[in-house]
């Protein structure tokens, strides 16, 4: 459930908001819908990871990955796919940590 909420909200937000909006979405969503810390982390991680993969590919596929390949060379990475995974891992980590924070804050206020 949490996974779906974060996924949909951060996908929509991705087109109009700065990148850290995903953190707020994951945090707030977990605050309301989060249950267990581990489950919240992986929901946030998975959702934002997938959203970032999708957003990046939406631009990169019609580009034949020309730009991503050039940037991969710039950062001395073996190819554009590694760059994509790196990008999404960062997004996932932020999403996961935010969701974890959300559920832990919720628990802190639970009696």
């Amino acid at each position: 459930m949490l996974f779906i909420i974060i996924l949909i909200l951060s996908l929509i937000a991705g087109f109009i908001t700065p990148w850290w909006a995903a953190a707020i979405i994951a945090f707030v969503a977990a605050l309301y819908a989060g249950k267990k810390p581990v489950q919240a982390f992986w929901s946030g991680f998975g959702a934002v990871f997938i959203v970032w993969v999708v957003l990046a590919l939406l631009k990169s596929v019609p580009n034949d990955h020309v730009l991503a390949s050039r940037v991969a060379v710039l950062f001395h990475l073996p190819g554009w796919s590694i760059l994509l995974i790196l990008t999404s891992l960062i997004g996932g980590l932020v999403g996961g940590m935010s969701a974890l924070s959300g559920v832990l804050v919720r628990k802190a206020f639970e009696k």
Partner: protein
Amino acid sequence: MKVTKALIAVLVTIILILGLEIKWSDTIPSIAVFLNPATGFWQNADSKHIIKERKLHLKGLQGKVTIKYDENMVPHIFAENEHDLYYAQGYVTAAERLWQMDIQTRSASGRLSEIVGQKALEVDRYHRRIGMVYGAENSLNEMMKDPRVAVMVNAYTEGINTYIHQLWKRDYPIEFKLLDYEPEEWKPINCALLLKLMSETLAGGTDAPAMTNVLKKFGPAITNDLFPDYPMREDPIIPAGTKWGFKTLPLPKASSDFISSMIEPIRRREKIEGIGSNNWVVAGSKSASGYPILANDPHLNLTFPSIWYQIQLSAPGINTNGVSIPGTPCVIIGYNNNISWGETNVAADVLDFYNIKFKDSSYNQYWYNNKWNKTTKRTEVINIHGRAPVTETVVYTHHGPVVYESADKRPKSRGDIPVSAAARWIAHDRSQDILTFYLLNRAKNYDDYRKALSYYTAPAQNFIFASADKDIAMTVNGKLPLKFKDQGKYILDGSDPANDWQGWIPAEQNPSSKNPERGYLSSANQSSTDQTYPYYINWSFGPYERGKRINDRLSTMKNATVDSMRVLQFDNYSIRAQDVLPTMLGNINTTKLTGQQQQVLQLIKNWDKRFDANSIGATIFNTWWVRFYGMIWNRHFDSKNGDLMYPSQDRTVKLLLKEPQSKWFDDPGTPGVETCLDVLNQTFNATVDSLVHKYGKPGTAWEWGRVKHTYINHLANLDGFGAGEFIAGGTGSTVNALINGHGPSWRMVVQMGPKVQGYGIFPGGESGNPGSLYYDDMLKTWQNGQLKPLLFLQSPTEPSTRIKSTLTLSSN
């Protein structure tokens, strides 16, 4: 416990986000700002699918503008008035090249440190202190006085700013994201700054300090012998024997002899052979069509994005096609229905240094005309990213700015600039250069061309011309100071009024040739004229070889076509080898050679004297010649400080051919007396040794295209954003002057006639975005030695299968 856990989790998350948002160093971008797919670099990936029809509503337009994009994304702009035309030029140029325009104007105005921090400080200081901004301000004031230019520059600026204002963060060019800064408002002075940058590249150096050191060390007799005022071999730009037909102005009197006492050591300026250009034109009498054909290829630094942006500009009273410089309105090299034109660099001496004697260390007064005169001071504030700003006070005399008034002001990197010397530089003068291009874009005939040229100041260019009414012409053009002979060959005494520039060569007396009997004209940076021209322009110009080869080819050409011109642009034949190789080979003592040396000798004997990519002979010859040149001169001119000017290639050729017993061949370290023969044999052996050492036995690894380095880098040298190294022929002294990171930055051939047809190509693409498929789409064609027929539409409705999309602009 629960609260602590929650707090830790929140804290870790916040630190993580901040850590990803912060820019950790000047060289690494903020990780999340750059990588996130919402606003980061992924957004710069342009789709390969082109939108066929687009309409935009832009504030400030007066009518409708139609822009047709061809298969290389070259814009063909049709506007209803001049304002809209230049507005649209600004808009589309910014859309493709915004970062390039930003970084180049920042560089010119000494503002790079604002972005990249301390490491650019000395570059910025130099640009402030040599007076780039001061010169741009003077030019801007002058050019805005002309109402046509004012409308043009303001509209161009408006177009750029309209584009900038509508950008979201995600739309910023990728380099802004990498360096983490934002585009700023364009200002009219930026257009002037870009022209100053051209002046710096093409007319911003002087050999006077290194020549002064030579004079001090060797005295006038040797200096005059080794550094003559005219080369042994020459094939001047204005055909030898041209009658001048004007009344010469009285020439200024030479000042009393003066040898500057430079207090601080100076380093000679590094000169790159091959930064220069070719242009030529054949008359109808020599062409298959009966109409002139014009060709031009400017040799400049090759970068991505390219220095050029192809464009067609059309509005009532103008329809022109060619290349522009991003950041400057107009077409700079191109054609219209009636004329075509192009440029190469003149290398006129328009930057002189004057020794200044200050009264005291306040630098408030300097000695001139037998009295103390007041200096003025200009304050320059340099903002530095992450540091406190630096304030520079630049001292100005009536000559110009004193770049470094004391040794402690001069950084190591600018050891070529004399201390306590004022720069008299043409780029500081009021100028209307841009009006020249405004008028050329609209010119209909020879008279219009000459009129347009009269407004041009700097950097002086050899303007080539052809018209549909079958005129051809060449004019060595720019605002050229009226000087006594050799004025500025050495550092000048700044206290003697006789050393000041005494006026100007009248524009109509600039060296020029129209419809010469021989049926062709050309320039390749060599001497402007033969020795009968009454005025002094400079004592040395570019080497003559490229010009000679072009003239040799053109003189024998009959029924010339566009393809004959294209083949000549790619010509790798070496006149230098033709001039020296027989003598060099004739001096080799074959009885003493080893088997391997014999083999190499055979290879160079069979060489066709072409610097083709697969040529082994070219590699052997080049290595041998460089070693020969070095062995003669290094002994005497390679000082610890690198402060002496080396004799020219031409002088070295003369030594080889005419003075084989010269004392310069002798090695003072040996008891015997060496001659040319000894030096040739020694350097030949050394050549074989070094090539075998580096590349093994003669074979593929010896091929010229692999030995010389040819590459195109990104403007900021970003890995992966350039084209990298590739195999190619040519060298600095061949017509195809492609070597290292510089060479033909635009190749154009224009067939004049009732219906003009242009051809052209540049190494790169119209887009400055590394994420665009139009970033380097023309590179292959350029590398393959091909030109593309240029699309030149006569109306916005003219059909063409090459048009891929249409953009319509209007204010509502």
